């Protein structure tokens, strides 16, 4: 007999599924992720408690449901580590208070809270958010907990230049703008740490497969999202192989796999019908590649998912499954 399903159980399993990704992140970028996780979780719970109190909601069931922790983990993984502490606070403030509770709280939010927090940060503080610790540099100098602490809380910026670097998507953009060809960049390993990032991608994939096995998510959204990315980037690559990075690159880098399995699948903000999920996630994949290739932001996962979040109710309305005993599916405007 399986235990009674509960929101807390689902969220616990999502956190378990995130743990390989967190471990890989730790291995690649150093101990900063521990700080950002703890900071995001603490600020998240604090803001959640305050807003619950303000809205006269009981604290225990809502703090205990684990949703805030999942939001915190997703934001921490989406953001670079070693940011000043108050940036995490701002991110979680927007995620929980604006993204979730101003829309009505658990289950009512139109947008994925973590992505909303992330979008606010990347739009408001692009200089900080685009600086990631450099995995290669960390390989030669192991960043201690003490270093991380100084950078996050004491504003130490001493080492930051030495230990930070552009992300693959960033450097691709920079190099392409300077006239180099994508194929040569990837082939010559001018883009840093692509192999190391495979591991992070694989660990998200592992967690995603766990979620699929536990039936927390269905296959529709990850498959359609990854398919949308592969298809769009594949077509772009065929059209312009010199200046496009190709599907494999797009599937590995940035937030692709985290988005496919953990963010786009957020049931509250995603489409919910089987056909709707395919449409929603496929289009999110398309928009992701479009933003990466033609937009001004390095990664497009967050904006693509937020955009499709706003389209999800419309998609649902037009993709209702055929009810048993009915000849066809119900469309808006049909008689009840």
């Amino acid at each position: 007999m399986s235990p009674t399903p509960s929101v807390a159980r689902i969220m616990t399993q999502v956190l378990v599924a995130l743990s390989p990704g967190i471990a890989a992140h730790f291995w690649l970028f150093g101990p900063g992720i521990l700080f950002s996780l703890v900071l995001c979780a603490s600020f998240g719970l604090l803001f959640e408690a305050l807003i619950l109190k303000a809205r006269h909601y009981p604290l225990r069931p809502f703090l205990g449901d684990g949703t805030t922790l999942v939001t915190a983990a997703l934001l921490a993984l989406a953001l670079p580590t070693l940011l000043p502490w108050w940036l995490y606070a701002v991110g979680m403030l927007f995620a929980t208070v604006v993204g979730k509770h101003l829309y009505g709280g658990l289950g009512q939010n139109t947008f994925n809270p973590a992505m909303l927090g992330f979008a606010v940060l990347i739009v408001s503080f692009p200089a900080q958010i685009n600086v990631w610790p450099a995995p290669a540099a960390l390989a030669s100098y192991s960043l201690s907990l003490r270093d991380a602490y100084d950078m996050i809380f004491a504003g130490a910026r001493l080492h930051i230049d030495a230990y930070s670097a552009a992300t693959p998507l960033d450097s691709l953009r920079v190099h392409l703008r300077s006239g180099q060809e994508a194929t040569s960049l990837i082939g010559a390993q001018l883009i840093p740490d692509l192999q190391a990032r495979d591991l992070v991608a694989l660990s998200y994939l592992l967690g995603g497969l766990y979620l699929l096995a536990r039936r927390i998510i269905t296959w529709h959204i990850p498959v359609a999202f990854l398919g949308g990315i592969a298809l769009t980037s594949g077509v772009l690559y065929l059209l312009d192989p010199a200046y496009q990075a190709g599907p494999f690159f797009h599937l590995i880098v940035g937030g692709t796999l985290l988005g496919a399995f953990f963010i786009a699948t957020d049931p509250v903000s995603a489409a919910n019908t089987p056909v709707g999920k395919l449409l929603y996630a496929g289009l999110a994949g398309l928009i992701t590649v479009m933003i990466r290739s033609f937009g001004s932001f390095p990664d497009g996962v967050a904006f693509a998912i937020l955009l499709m979040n706003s389209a999800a109710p419309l998609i649902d309305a037009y993709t209702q499954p055929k009810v048993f005993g009915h000849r066809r599916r119900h469309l808006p405007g049909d008689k009840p």
Partner: protein
Amino acid sequence: MTALFKFPGGVHPPDHKAESNTTPIRDLPLLPRYVVPLSQHLGKPAEPCVSVGERVLGGQMIGAPKPGVSAAIHAPTSGRVSAIEARPIAHPSGLNAPCIVIDSDGEDACITTPPPAHEDRETQLTRLRNMGLAGLGGAVFPTHIKLAPGSDEHWPLLILNGAECEPWITCDDRLMREHADAILDGAHLIQNLIGAAQILVGVEDNKPEAIAALRSAANTASQSNISICPVPTLYPMGGGKQLTYALTGRTTPSGGRTTDVGVQVFNVGTAYALQHAIRHGEPLTRRIVTVTGAVKNPGNYAVRIGTPISALIAAAGGRTPNAYGTLIGGPMMGFDLASDEAPVSKMVNCILVKDNQNFPPPAPALPCIRCGACARACPVSLQPFEMHWYARAHDFGKAQSFKLFDCIECGCCDHVCPSHIPLVSFFRYAKSEIWAREQEKDAADRARVRHEFRSFRLEREKMEKAAKHAAAAKPKTEVATAPAAVPDADPEAARKKAILAAAMARAAEARKEITPKNTEGLPEDKVREISEIESRRASLLQSVHDSIVKEEEEESSPAQKESP
């Protein structure tokens, strides 16, 4: 062996069959008093045909069926009618309902009506109606009606429903194990009555003993047109439309019945009772009831209709110390019993005593996170979370557009909901609100028709008066032309009449559009509620029409007097 089809959704709740299916069906000792409710079936309650103080014999009809959808009730034993009054019955409302109370004399003398050697179909159907046969799977629809196909109907397939998918309940299981021969004989009797070519017996594969018993009975009967079909254990396999789909792949249209796809479905218990009624002339005065859960000796009992549930629980060894409540039916679709003094009626297939271990108090409901688990579990492919969303917001029209009335209230969504939302309760609430609003709308429609007619009548009177004055003002010599003025006024009146007719047609059309569909498979009380509303509506509409016609006649007659 037929191929099987998988209906959408479904859940696997822990089945808890082993608690009660290991012991044979036991008899209950004769009790000093029985309480027989007048309404134990869908449709109209029976009409008492005995009076207080009268002596009755076991099997004697004490409540006669009313015309239409109704069935008879019978005395469970011999004794004296001590009261005909409202008593607690096993019903979700917990309200009292009229019952006939019989104090038994301890002799248990029974009427024996040996069945005639040969009788035609019509007499047989009437006899079944007078024997009080009703579906024993839970819906208690009067059986004789389901045995009479309409002149344009053809039911080539008979399905016996032995799925018994609801957890804890094992009364059909034990019955199939112990009386497979009688069940199959009953199936053949039904087959002859409805003219079916083939019989399929659907049994969930968690009942291998029952399947084996039925198979051996089918072999000895050496009938070629009957197949025993094990079906996967998947709740709600026992739903008539679900079982039909699983066995035949035929989808019953929304709002229709399985007979629309040529299939008639009977519960195995009903087939057994029908066999007894036809072969032995025994009316339906007892049924098998599972008593399980937090009782000392769970098991199945052959219980006389009218036995107080408290006596049945006592016969099963009484409640265990930590028991706290009683369900009628199973955990998925059953309801809480308000009073243990309520009697066993034809619809009571299981008495499930709750305790904290198996029925912990429900966790507080959290907001819906739209995880879609309910939609994946729904056997009708509904989107319960959307319906819940709109039902909660009192947007019932929108809830209905998500096919609220296709919901069979099986409880799969409740079972899987991680937020512990009582979804089915929301849907029942939304349905009853829609019915109530429909009534209001109907009343408003009637008022509008009356108002439109009144305006038309006043207008007509005014015109007639004007015409009269005009006629009077003209010289007497032109009196010959006066009758010609009347045909002149007629086209105008005809136009008004057409306007009125159009308005009434519009109102009728609007009513038709909002009439909820698919009321089959609803719980008994809801169907009764609907039929009451429908009958009230019909009579009210009729009275409006009558009054309008009468007014017309009254008005036209003085006019005729004046015209010459």
